[in-house]
């Protein structure tokens, strides 16, 4: 016969088991379809977010609120001389694939400037990261609110 104590033990153990299952299973299933910002940064730049310095010399222009995530205009410019810059990277934190584009510059560009239109799945920062020729990385970002996502 199952006593009250036994019953509580069983319930307790199964609840614990479920919690562990939940912790173990959920992150793997969600990361299978989605790449995290940290992984995308490591893949393209070789370092994580904490290794990238914020800079006021980079300006990211994007709407504060985007009506449609399918078409968000983004413009990046910088006062840093083009001769010192190697490339520009654009990331959106919460997209299934956060990497949007990278641009390799040369002195023939005259100045650091890039504009495009991007897809956004949800409200997220839009990041612009400049890779300088001395190997350093500088970043600026703009938070864009998205009411209707454009990734599905």
């Amino acid at each position, binding site marked *: 016969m199952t006593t009250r104590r036994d019953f509580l033990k069983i319930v307790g153990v199964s609840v614990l088991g479920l919690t562990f299952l939940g912790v173990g299973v959920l992150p793997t299933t969600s990361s299978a*379809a989605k790449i995290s910002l940290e992984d995308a940064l490591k893949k393209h730049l070789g370092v994580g977010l904490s290794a990238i310095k914020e800079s006021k010399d980079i300006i990211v222009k994007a709407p504060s609120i985007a009506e449609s995530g*399918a*078409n*968000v205009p983004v*413009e990046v410019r910088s006062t840093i001389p083009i001769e010192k810059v190697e490339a520009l990277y654009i990331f*959106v934190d919460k*997209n*299934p*694939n*956060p*990497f*949007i*584009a*990278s*641009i*390799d*510059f*040369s*002195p*023939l*560009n*005259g*100045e*650091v*400037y*890039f*504009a*495009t*239109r*991007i*897809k956004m799945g949800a409200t997220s920062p839009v990041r612009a990261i400049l890779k300088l020729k001395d190997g350093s990385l500088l970043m600026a970002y703009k938070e864009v609110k998205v009411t209707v996502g*454009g*990734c*599905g």
Partner: protein
Amino acid sequence: MAKIGRAIVKVPKKVKKGQVVTIRMVIIHPMETGLRKDKKTGKPIPAHYITHVDFYFNDKLFTKINTSAGVSKNPYFAIKFKPTESGTLKIFYEDNKGGKWEKTVQITVEG
């Protein structure tokens, strides 16, 4: 539907020496992520997107844009350009299904 891969390039054809101009372009392309499903059949729509856009001036590569499907449908790109001599601007672009296209524009530098 307009033909995939067609592009419109806007750049001044005459540039004063030392002047920085803007090159703007729009490419007709669906930019499918591969994550969307066909609403009628429920089957996933295969990924189809531009992978890179290369800008050459007098056969020298001066800007390379590597793109993902995160760029919007019918992608728009703008970059700056400071030519020091007259010549040919060639823009070459490719997609993940083997589509290859190019556009050329003659540019004259004055003064």
